[in-house]
């Protein structure tokens, strides 16, 4: 019976305790670096980058129209309201396209039919840059790339616009 009682010797007891305490300490030290290492995986993409552009899907026509909306931009601890603009229209395949109005040449703001000599084109007042209705730059004018496109989404019948991306086709 006495053998049964002494199943855990003093040496074993100390071993177990030390291993346990050491394990806790190691875990405590490791947990923050591990959390940091796997952080990118845990970050969820909330899609919060999309903002209400303030136009109903049904109001978008084949004629490009300029829309302005504001987004809250957080820059570190500094939060500010930034105005964004886009030209939106419905293309021949009945898809909605939203172009960034920033000229790909030197960054002026282009406008649809901004020059009477060039109907059905986007026109940049700075250096006569032009783009066709599908956003592709007119060869021979200063811009060398088509207009950038906004990522878009429909929510409750309203148009939501997100990040600016390079034009895919052409």
């Amino acid at each position: 019976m006495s053998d049964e009682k002494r199943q855990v010797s003093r040496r074993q007891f100390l071993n177990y305790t030390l291993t346990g305490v050491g394990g806790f300490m190691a875990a405590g030290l490791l947990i923050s670096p591990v959390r940091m290492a796997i952080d990118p995986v845990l970050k969820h993409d909330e899609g919060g980058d999309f903002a209400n552009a303030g136009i109903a899907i049904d109001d978008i026509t084949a004629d490009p129209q300029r829309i302005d909306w504001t987004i809250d931009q957080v820059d570190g601890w500094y939060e500010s309201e930034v105005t964004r603009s886009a030209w939106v229209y419905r293309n021949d395949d009945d898809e909605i396209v939203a172009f960034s109005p920033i000229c790909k040449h030197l960054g002026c703001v282009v406008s649809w039919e901004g020059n009477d000599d060039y109907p059905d084109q986007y026109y940049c007042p700075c250096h006569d840059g032009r783009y066709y209705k599908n956003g592709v730059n007119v060869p021979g004018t200063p811009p060398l790339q088509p207009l950038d496109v906004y990522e878009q989404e429909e929510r409750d019948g309203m148009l939501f616009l997100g990040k600016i991306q390079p034009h895919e086709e052409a």
Partner: protein
Amino acid sequence: MKWTSVDLQKYDQAKEYIDTVIVPLAPFQIGILEASAKNADQYDILTLFSRELEKELMGRIMLAPTYTYIAAAEKSEEVKRLNGWTNHFKKQPFKQVLYISFDPSWRKIASDLEGEFIWLPTASLKDADPAAVKGIIRDQTMQTVELIKSFW
């Protein structure tokens, strides 16, 4: 383009395209409350407005730092100094130097200036709500853009 290191680098690579300098002119004083406060408000609006203008036409204009002067100063002295600025810009070379201001007293001596003077009617934004301010600034910007285009 603005007068920042980032924009100056861009300017350096595209000098031949950026041929216009915009210089906002703003009077200031610290004295009689009413007049000083008015100058201060106008200074704010002018800053806001010139930034909008720059955003719209950034590929062809360089926005210079605001030229400030004491409201009661002798204008003929200011003209000399301002022409010094203009000569400095034209050496770059910039082809056009445009001054924008809410101060109508420049009008009388505008012919002595070596750049073009554009007077803007004052927009009172004091009591307007932020959305309305945006609209007013935007309207005035677009009209001034049209005016600037006529110089090109």
